[in-house]
């Protein structure tokens, strides 16, 4: 019943195929590429969690990186400074991120669009300042390195599989959430909040719940970062990272389900490969952004959607679009 609808989607088969290939990838690729893929997975989860707010809720979550950082710092500090079991530390990360999402969301949700985003940058920067300044606890600018990771996921391959499986579970959950009445209503609020209020929906409360869910997944991504890198540092909470993941959503297709994964893969690849030749790799990013605005305002995967919007679409097409992007 729960999965029946999903299993009928064509895109579901493709997803399983990709997942299968990724499962055997460590046997075929050099270690660096395994690590590289794991970084893409973590970033993709982060961008996907942001897109719950941006693409599906039209909430301008400008400082989503903070929740990534809160998740990473919570798990990292608990692992490095306490004797708490690893699984408890891993669970604390997303919960702390969701709590931060609730607290910041409570203030921001009173404002609309850009003002929402501006206030979030301000409040998020406060959390960054704490991580940056509180040397005794966070190590300040240096951060904390060599965080003890449990043996079974300490190797490159071990962490790769762990991240892949968690990513798979999170994507499945996000998909189900977006297809649920909650997700459907969130998308309706995105299109027309005034109309939603007029049909009896408590718009602000619904948006706040979406923020909590999105920040929870952002926190999961933060924990995965700690597993892959074994370190935490204040840049995780800095606003430039938030901007980067925002661009990933726009680039991949923010009105689509899987678009942010593509956006994350492109930007992480640029940073990794072009970044080794020149530190000005963001120049290329800038050019891509300009092209994007002119030619693909709804992102790479959003292109299909525009075609769909022009012509009449059957429900199947709409459904498969929503599923695959």
């Amino acid at each position, binding site marked *: *019943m*729960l999965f029946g*609808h*999903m299993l009928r989607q064509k895109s579901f088969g493709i997803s399983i195929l990709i997942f299968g290939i990724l499962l055997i990838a460590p046997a075929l690729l050099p270690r660096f590429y395994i690590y590289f893929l794991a970084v893409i997975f973590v970033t993709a989860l982060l961008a996907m969690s942001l897109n719950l707010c941006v693409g599906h809720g039209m909430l301008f979550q400008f400082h989503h990186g903070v929740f990534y950082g809160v998740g990473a710092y919570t798990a990292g500090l608990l692992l490095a400074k306490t004797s708490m079991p690893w699984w408890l530390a891993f669970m604390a990360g997303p919960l702390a991120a969701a709590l931060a999402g609730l607290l910041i969301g409570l203030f921001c949700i009173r404002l609309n669009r850009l003002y929402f985003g501006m206030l979030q940058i301000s409040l998020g920067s406060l959390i960054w300042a704490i991580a940056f300044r509180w040397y005794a606890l966070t190590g300040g600018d240096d951060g904390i390195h060599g965080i003890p990771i449990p043996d079974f996921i300490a190797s490159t391959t071990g962490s790769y599989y762990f991240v892949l499986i968690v990513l798979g579970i999170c994507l499945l*959950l996000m998909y*189900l*959430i977006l*297809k*649920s*009445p*909650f*997700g*459907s*209503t969130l*998308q*309706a609020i*995105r*299109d*027309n909040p*005034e*109309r*939603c*209020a*007029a*049909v*009896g*929906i*408590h*718009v602000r409360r*619904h948006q706040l*719940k979406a923020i909590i869910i999105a920040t929870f997944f952002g926190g999961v991504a933060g924990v995965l970062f700690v597993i892959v890198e074994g370190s935490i540092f204040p840049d995780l909470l800095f606003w430039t990272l938030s901007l980067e993941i925002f661009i990933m959503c726009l680039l991949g297709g923010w*009105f689509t389900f899987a678009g942010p994964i593509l956006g994350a893969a492109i930007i992480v690849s640029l940073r990794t490969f072009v970044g080794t030749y020149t530190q000005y790799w963001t120049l290329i990013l800038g050019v891509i952004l300009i092209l994007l605005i002119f030619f693909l305002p709804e992102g790479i995967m959003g292109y299909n959607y525009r075609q*769909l*919007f*022009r*012509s*009449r*679409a*059957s*429900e*199947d097409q*709409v*459904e498969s679009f929503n599923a695959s992007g």
Partner: protein
Amino acid sequence: MLQVEDLHKSFDDFKAVDGVHLSVEKGQLVAVIGPNGAGKTTLFNLICGQLQPESGKILFNDDEIGRLPPFEICRKGIARSFQIANIFQRLSVFRNVQVSVLSQQRLSNKLFHPAAQLAVNETNHILESVGLLDKNADVAGSLSHGDKRILEIAIALGNEPELLILDEPTAGMSPDETATTMALIQRLAEKQGLTILFCEHDMEVVFGVAQSIMVMQQGRTIVQGDPQAVRENTEVQQAYLGDE
């Protein structure tokens, strides 16, 4: 069912609603008429909570609703349509109506259950009753203007309202579309026993269908009564119909 008493609302110095009285009885089809700028839309926005009145009372089933937010007013049983087609552009026609049905059934917060399987019959039933069932898979933004306005009414019906408020349901429609829409409104009132309050600036459209008419001018209520009484009222004749 709905009583509006001496309602006032101004924007800066402009008095948009300045002493409005309105009464809607259960089962009635009531029209508000007045020239453009008479304050009809402002009145509806006040009743539905999009705006807050400065003074006066709005009673719905004897409850004061004048300062409630829109979603609470909706939950009390008042659904509305807007003058400018106010739909969910990116969603399919089916999902447009389903959103309000899910809200009515208090299912909007349900997680992890496919929305596609919920409230399907109720939603299709509404689409059938307004004649949009064959277009249920279309993206709402791709509909014709007339169909968007009908969809607008269908979304409001999803709330199973006691009172349905329609803001110029035929604005921008061709004469044919206007006739179809008015026939639909009459059918909803008669067959489903809905209480409907609507506004219109085209007098001919109104006199044919409304059981009670309230005439507004410059934010004030001139008179409310049955069509005959309104037609014979000298103040209305002077103010609105001209000296025919």
